[in-house]
Every structure is written in structure tokens, then in C-alpha cells.
């Protein structure tokens, strides 16, 4: 079950509010890719891509694509003023050194401690971790955007992840269609609740304690 585009945009818009001027930001696929559409004009950031771009811009116009200028997913992009290219080692050096301020990604499960499980889909072939482990482990802040429950209605925010971890205790903030949740040392805290959901709805669909 996917979320409608309005709800996906609502989640992306809320995530965009976490972005501060001057940040270096790496976006995952799915809902995170919608975040730039919701950034106010006065916020200037550098979008980082693992394949060696700092300063990615929007998709090019049809017919204007450059086959040698693509994001990490292999799709054509543009660059903004001030952008730079680098090799893969330097690109990941930026991540490991803590120069990537924020990564916004999707997930299959997140635990109340902020464990992230987003790289092995149950029943599917193992695709490889790509750059997910380094981003999750080393980006200064990790925000997860996802459906609150999976397609079978099961909670995705859980006490313990059942899927193999991408990285332990790395998630700072979770944004779903139901609300915004902060991972703290004391557990999972509800920061904001989205209409029309009640705290009871949230608790019924979350498989760990939700503090208010």
C-alpha cells in the first residue's frame, strides 16, 4: 500500500522544515526525493550524491539530459552554482568525516532506539548495501520518511527490528503520515501529530511505547 501523493508531499514538506541554510544534504529515493520541491527560496543547501556530486540541482528538461551527469540512482540531474565533482572515495570521505549534515531516507523498520533496517527486503534477493551503511552511520543527522505501517498493516516503528540492520542507533527523527517522532535516549517521543490521527490511532499502529 503506497501513500497518496498529497500525503507523500505533506511528509516531504515537513521534512523540508528540518533543513537549515548552508547544510549539505543527501536524499534517498522515494518520498525523500520530493523534499527539494518544498524548500523555501531563501534556503540554500548543497545536495550531495554518493557518486561524486556536491550541489545537485533539479532534473533537466526533456532532451537536455547529459548521460555523464546523473544522481546515484542513475537519473539525469543538473548542478547549481558552486557545485563540484569528486571521486567516490572523496564523496564518502565527506560522509564519514561528518561533513554531510543531514540524510533523509526511507525505511522498512525503525526501532525505538533508532536502529535502521532499510536494505534487505524480506523475500527478495540481497541487493547489497550500496552507500546506505555509511550514510546512516555517519551523517550528522538521519531523518526517516516512511508509511507508518507496512502494506499488511503492521507497525514499522517497533521495539526491536526483525530485519537485518543497516546501522544501529542512528535515526534521529521519523516522519510518517501520522506524525513526527523523535528518538531520544529515553525512547520514542511524539513531537507533532497530524490530523486526523489521534494519539490512540498512533499507539495502536506503533509497536513500542510512544511518549508524549
Amino acid at each position: 500500500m503506497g501513500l497518496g501523493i498529497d500525503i507523500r508531499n505533506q511528509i516531504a514538506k515537513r521534512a523540508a522544515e528540518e533543513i537549515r541554510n548552508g547544510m549539505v544534504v543527501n536524499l534517498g529515493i522515494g518520498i525523500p526525493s520530493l523534499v527539494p520541491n518544498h524548500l523555501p527560496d531563501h534556503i540554500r543547501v548543497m545536495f550531495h550524491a554518493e557518486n561524486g556530486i556536491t550541489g545537485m540541482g533539479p532534473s533537466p528538461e526533456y532532451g537536455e539530459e547529459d548521460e555523464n551527469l546523473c544522481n546515484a540512482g542513475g537519473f539525469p540531474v543538473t548542478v547549481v552554482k558552486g557545485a563540484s565533482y569528486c571521486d567516490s572515495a572523496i564523496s564518502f570521505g565527506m560522509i564519514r568525516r561528518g561533513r554531510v549534515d543531514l540524510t533523509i531516507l526511507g525505511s522498512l523498520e525503525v526501532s525505538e532506539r533508532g536502529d535502521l533496517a532499510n536494505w534487505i527486503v524480506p523475500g527478495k534477493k540481497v541487493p547489497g548495501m550500496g552507500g546506505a551503511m555509511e550514510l546512516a552511520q555517519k551523517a550528522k543527522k538521519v531523518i526517516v520518511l516512511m508509511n507508518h505501517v507496512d502494506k499488511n498493516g503492521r507497525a514499522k516503528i517497533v521495539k526491536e527490528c526483525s530485519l537485518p540492520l543497516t546501522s544501529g542507533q542512528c535515526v534521529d527523527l521519523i516522519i510518517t503520515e501520522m506524525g513526527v517522532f523523535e528518538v531520544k535516549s529515553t525512547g520514542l517521543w511524539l513531537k507533532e501529530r497530524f490530523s486526523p490521527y489521534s494519539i490512540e490511532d498512533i499507539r495502536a499502529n506503533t509497536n513500542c511505547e510512544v511518549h508524549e
Partner: protein
Amino acid sequence: MENTFNKIVSLEQAMDYFHDGMTILFGGFGGIGSPPTIIDGIIEKGIKELTLIGNDTGFPHIGIGKVVSKGRAKKVIASHIGSNPIAGQLMTDGQLEVEFSPQGILAERIRAGGVGLAGILSDIGMDNEIVTENKQRVKVNKKEYLIETALTGDISIIYAKKADPYGNLIYDKSARNTNPLVAMAGNMTIAEVEEIVPLGELEADEIITPGVFVDFIVPSKGVNWKWAWE
């Protein structure tokens, strides 16, 4: 073009160095920056039992994926094979051994091989068995790290935008990716290039890979696959 250093060769001459069972490091990320002409040369020559080292296995019809899809590799060391379902199928069927390495660590392992180091110390993926399996651990300043061993190979194949006859290289935008690292790691490096310019034409300040690392230069016939977005 003056061939002062005898590095400029035809594809046919370059293919003399390829044989069954060898280890090939390849540049590229999702096929972008992978050398299309050399890849076709490998396929046409029919070499097999290859160990391939690079970022990912491309797509079934793109980049090194073309070689993998034809069952020519026995082993792949990569960070990702998800965009090439044939690679996944071969792995499931036991016909392809796959060693996964986190993307930036793979890049550093290749770089380490290229700069004469035995390995690197990494704290990436320490709570994941796929990453930690069979790796030594070492403590530095009271913190534990994995020893990630360096990667080298018989031949590196890379793709660049411009070369001069010495093999000095510049790349094109995001097609640079792993190429400068792979360029250093092979016992022999063959660069496929879009354009060869006279000595002195590349600004010394702009050169990304010094020609020291490049043994042969092959003119490219250009990308002949259709990209996923096309």
C-alpha cells in the same frame, strides 16, 4: 597524433592482455563512466571465469552488467547488484560469488590497493555480519575497527573524457566516480577515452589522474547502450 610514449593502442592490441580467469577492476557507477568499447572487447574475445571488482554490476545491458549477464564472471566484489537482476539470479543459483563491501569502503579498498597500502581500518557496518564476516579486528586508541584489505587486480579498465599521449586524464562530471581510484589499482591500467589531445594541451593543474598510472590508451567508440532513463 604523436605516440611519444607508445601508450596509444587499438582495441585489438589492448585485448591481447586479457585472458580467462583474470581479475579486472572496472570504473563506473551504474554504468556511467564504464568503458563501453573495452567491455565489448571482453565480450567479443569470449574471456570467462573473471573476477570483477567495481562499484556495482550495472544493468543487464549497461556497463559491466553486459559481461556479468553473459555468465563470464565467477566472482564479483561490489557494493550493489540490485540494478542487475541477472546478477542476483546467478548469485542465487550459485553460479556467481558476490562479496559485498559498503560503497565508500570499497572505494577506499581500491584506493589502498592503488597507493601501495595493505588495507584500511574501518568502523562501517561493524554490527552487520555480511560486513564483518572473516575480518580481523584491531583496536586503535581504545576503539575497535575492522581491517578492510586492499584490492588490486591484473588489469584496470577505466573511462575518461580526455587523455594526452602520456595518459594524463580528465573525466566528465559524475562519470568520474570510481575511475581515478580504479586507475591506480590494477597491475596494468587501460584507459578508454573520448578524446586524445596533444601533449601540453591539458592544463597540468586540471589533470585528475597522472599518466604515471596509465599504461595504455584506447580511443572510445562511445556509449552504445540505452540508459534506463531513455
